[in-house]
């Protein structure tokens, strides 16, 4: 999985409290914070963000978007996967303050208006591609990101090296499994998840 953080590209921000407790004799009254604006599921949100706050906690604690899950908080399980400017990322590894101006899509932002599910969500339902459901939002976001990466011609570890550069990479089951391997499912729904992603491709 691509876990590189998106580049901050917003305007320079006001730093609320830049005191560094490591270098001060007394602890600050409040931790360093900055105003940060994110577009989440199409809506802008400007928050004064603790510099330690990762995107996952911002979504869950500040915006009430608990769809992204905290499985490990260390980028090891993929349960927190969201799309940042269209690319999948472990939101537990991204400092929110560094994402000023970024477009974030979470599992809550995938379905259309009303009752309509995203095709990947529908396929997960139809294939019973989950049990406890805790990894599911991450799996779904990751699958959507992986489909886009393949369409954009990004190779994976198992892509045939003879595949023309820049051409969409066809996704067989081995490709699907490889590309989703950053998302752990302890219930063992993997075969059904691969089925669901295949359904969306075909």
């Amino acid at each position, binding site marked *: 999985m691509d876990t590189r953080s998106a580049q901050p590209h917003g305007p320079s921000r006001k730093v609320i409290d830049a005191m560094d407790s490591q270098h001060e004799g007394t602890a600050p009254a409040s931790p360093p914070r900055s105003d940060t604006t994110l577009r989440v599921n199409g809506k802008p949100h400007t928050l004064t963000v603790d510099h330690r706050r990762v995107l996952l906690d911002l979504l869950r604690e500040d915006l009430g978007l608990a769809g992204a899950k905290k499985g490990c908080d260390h980028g090891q*399980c993929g349960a927190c996967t969201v799309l940042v400017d269209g690319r999948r990322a472990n939101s537990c590894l991204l400092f929110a303050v560094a994402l000023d101006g970024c477009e974030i899509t979470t599992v*809550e932002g995938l379905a259309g208006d009303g009752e309509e599910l995203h095709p990947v969500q529908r396929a997960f339902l139809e294939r019973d591609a989950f049990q406890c459901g805790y990894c599911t939002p991450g799996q779904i976001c990751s699958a959507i990101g992986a489909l886009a990466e393949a369409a954009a011609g990004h190779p994976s570890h198992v892509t045939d090296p003879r595949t023309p550069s820049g051409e969409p990479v066809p996704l067989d089951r081995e490709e699907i499994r490889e590309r989703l391997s950053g998302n752990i499912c302890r219930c063992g729904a993997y075969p059904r998840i691969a089925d669901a992603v295949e359904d969306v491709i075909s």
Partner: protein
Amino acid sequence: MTGTETVLGAPVERREGREKVTGTARYAAEYDAVGRAQAWPVPAAVARGRVTGVDPSPALTLPGVLAVLTHENAPRLADPQDPTLAVLQSPHVPHRGWFVGLVVGETLEAARAGAAAVRVTYEAEDHDVTLTADHPEAYVPDMANGGFPAVTEHGDPDAAFASSATRLDVEYRVPPLHNHPMEPHTSTARWDGDRLTVHSSSQGTTAVRTELASMFELPEDRITVLAEHVGGGFGSKGTPRADVVLAALAARTTGRPVTVALPRRYLPAVVGHRAPTLHRLRLGADAGGRITSLDHEVTTHTSRVKEFVEQAAVPARVMYAADALRTSHRVAPLDVPTPSWMRAPGECPGMYALESAMDELATDLGIDPVELRIRNEPETEPDSGKPFSSRNLVQCLREGVRRFGWADRDPRPGSRRAGPLLVGSGVAAATYPVLVSPCAASARALPDGDFLVRVNATDIGTGARTVCAQIAADALGVPLDRVRIEVADSGIGFAPMAGGSSGTASWGWSVHEACVRLGGRLAGHSGPLPGEGIVADADTSGTADADSPFARHAFGAHFAEVTVDTVTGEVRVTRLLGVFAAGRILNARTARSQFVGGMTMGLGMALTEDSTVDPAFGDFTECDLASYHVPAHADVADVEAHWVDEEDAHLNPMGSKGIGEIGIVGSAAAVGNAVHHATGIRFRELPLTPHRVLTALLEHEHPAGMLGA
């Protein structure tokens, strides 16, 4: 009513599926409330000893830190039934990672920074965390987990072994293993006066409420425990864990709602683990392949907090006809974290050893391993002499042979090569007992024509809501969409946990009974229903737990195909096929998912899951998901689950056996046996990592002293 005959067994979609795929399903950390605080525990930094001092001031001066709780200032609690829950009650440190403090903060960041800032000093004592088969402190316990006697003996196993035509005497090792459900153990607690409400990630709210009531010395009716959605458990949430006690303590101390979400790295030390097991198996057989003597000895560890004995020799009491049969457990109390349930405790590691030994015996005898098992089918349960309520192991084996294409197998080890890959296939049997407990439920006919079924089931991913609704629809004879269901609330009534593969049988039995009674009342009712409807209650105490004259177990067979890379030592499971006989399958869709999930966890046990108790530090080296490797997508190529039709009138009104655990039982042995078939090398210690396999391959090709020559 017509058209409902197929409700039970039908592949019905999960009722909460839409919530799970849209991210609206709420788990224990996700119940926000005004003023909710977050808490972060402080784990002990010594393997044995006591806390001599705590300086909370560096934490308390940090912004957003609300409180630092330790044994010095935490409210005193009554002794818990489970001593692992006596957190912050004494300076004693029984193992590394035991919680010695809890920092409550306005935010996760504040609590975490506070936990890092608390200064704890210790008086460390020498510790011993290393299990050996001849550990001087090992003893024979009274009971193993599940209430099984530690030792059973029939006939004269030693004499029978000594006089057997073929003798196998082998040792196997299974390392500590970790449950690691995707949702870490989490609780959110809130006090309203003397009423306590907790959202807890638990496999059963009744047990959580009982323990909290006793520890906080409250009447049970002042405590509500909710577990609407639970992100897996696999046994580690079967009873309350420290998170719920800490959350209730912190909420009481601070007067705020508090969430305790345990950090992933802390889980192995505090939520239980599958204890390591050292196995010695002695199998004697006659020339015809009939087992004359079976002796399974297990040595395991427990902590000094409480005794937990992984009952790994118990499946040998069930599996094969042997005139002489001995099974025994020994346990060494060490300064280790406390072991507990992990998916199929006992059966899972025990059947790895027994089914690996059966494969070795088949090889020694020159008998097909499927045939060897069929030749040793018992007439009655070997240990108890009871008749089986149903036993379709042979049918599972034969169905697996057919589906897997076993007949085409060349039995000679190392006979299939594909470039640098060796290819092999293996088989192993599976068993898991039928467990069931009493439960309360109610069914109400509503004036709008719907039915409301309430049962305190917990849906940890099994599809409990869905299958209980199916059972209700079937018993009422109404369409499934007329049945509403409420679960996972301790206020509904008492219920057993989602564990021991007993949930559906236990909850379903009481749901069935309530619905049958309601049907009777409705039959005697004329005219419109009153506003509150008509209700019927059920309590299966005395029925569900009545002694059975039958030995009741599910059975199964696993078939695995592997490739072994002779260059890297990597083993890959190219096919894993299971066939199960588990009574009536109540929801084909969710049942298949559970079987496949169990088999996948068995694949992890075989190949990747490995934990080590560090002799110096005293805790698990592989404590997170970067170091403890659970299977990922790329590891799981082709896993299939099938079942045979099994009618068994001696189970419960649905005719079902549990399915949550049998999928993991025997799957690691099937993989290991396939690796032997591929390589000709017998591995007797899990997991089959590239390092271990490559080392053995090189030694095999270049015996000692030859390497590098």
